């Protein structure tokens, strides 16, 4: 299969997965008290920059393959609002993964701290404060974002459903994406990188 055709096929498959996830109306509520306790501490934004590290819940959102394109289609935003990182599937096939960080703050966070695209926001946002990772043996593991002030309220039913969702996606996620997700633990995007020596 030609690279272009493969990309079209992969994109269609991922779009279908996102549609399925968002169409699931039985998802349990997380019970998180995001507005009351957190003031959107996990949404990368300009005001987060001067925060002490212990106040920041998560300064980076990493989108799944083709999730950037999916959100662009749903919201009409352009690629320029995302920071894009490459992951190579083959020597000649590259995926571009969208992220949001403190250098590319979330364009969807409203002044009232509500999410402007809550109906189809990124799975990484939906999943937080649960953080998936792939251990060296290749199995999924879960940790919790300790700086989430609302973590004590996290609903077990919601956790189970999120784990189930990710387990369904895991066979389709390239290993390189997990490497990018791990890198995001060491990246905030701010201060902006300098191009000078």
């Amino acid at each position, binding site marked *: 299969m030609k690279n272009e055709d493969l990309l079209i096929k992969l994109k269609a498959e991922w779009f279908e997965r996102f549609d399925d996830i968002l169409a699931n109306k039985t998802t349990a509520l997380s019970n998180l008290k995001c507005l009351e306790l957190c003031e959107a501490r996990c949404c990368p934004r300009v005001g987060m920059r001067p925060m002490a590290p212990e106040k920041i819940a998560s300064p980076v959102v990493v989108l799944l393959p083709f999730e950037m394109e999916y959100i662009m289609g749903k919201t009409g935003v352009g690629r320029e609002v995302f920071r894009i*990182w*490459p992951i190579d599937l083959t*020597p000649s096939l590259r995926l571009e993964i969208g992220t949001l960080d403190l250098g590319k703050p979330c364009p969807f966070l409203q002044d009232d701290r509500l999410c402007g695209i809550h109906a189809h926001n990124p799975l990484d946002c939906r999943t937080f404060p649960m953080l998936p990772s792939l251990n060296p043996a290749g199995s999924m593991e879960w940790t919790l974002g300790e700086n989430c002030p609302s973590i004590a309220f996290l609903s077990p039913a919601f956790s189970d459903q999120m784990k189930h969702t990710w387990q369904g996606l895991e066979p389709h996620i390239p290993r390189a994406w997990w490497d990018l997700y791990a*890198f995001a633990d060491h990246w*905030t995007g701010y201060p902006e990188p300098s191009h000078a*020596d």
Partner: protein
Amino acid sequence: MPIEMNGPGGASLSIVNGSSPELLQAACQLFEQVFPEDRRYLPYLRACAQGNHPSHPNTYDHVWLVGLNGQWVGVRIFSYITTRTFGHGAYIGFTPQARGAGLGTWLVEQTLRQLDDDARKFGTGKSLGYLVEVERPIDAETEEERKKDERRLQFHRQCGGIILPVPFVEPVMIEGVDYISPTDLQGESPRPMHLVLIPSERGNSLQNLNLVDFVHGLYYDVYRLPRGHTFVKNALSYLLGGKNE
């Protein structure tokens, strides 16, 4: 912390330098055995054993041997980049019978300790760790090669390695060295690689890794590429976009 000269299972570390021709010979022999495809880079090993070879003006180089049961089983070549706060791990390798015994992890720990010493020596504080270039399994031409590449990458992941999302191409050789001529390297070509940071404790605690510093340090200070080289531009293209030099 001081370097542990004694490792798991009775292994021991020996420092190879210009004053120990026998050790240098042993290092060369082991290098040829462990990295047969890279035997043309033996002059690089010899240069690194000098510590501060004139062709490497921005690095302080180290060559180590690991002995076990009276035999040399491991070789390590790495450098501290004196103009930055991190190092470059050029080679780490063991004979097949010495693999899987925890020697690699121990050697990585000792490397990080040495780099901390070097950072103090050169007045740059504590080291952030070191960069390694690792073959990408997706470039392998055979299944055997792919498995070998996957094993190497997995080793670095297990050592806490952070795979940096920059499209990195490994130059064939450091520019302008006086110990290898271009004809010696005929047939070699630059290869796409993963650029991996093996972080020290300090490096691991950083919230915002400076990818530009890493890319510039490796390309300009280690490989001595000219400013604005295509490899540098490509590596930083996603990060800097139009601001790239």
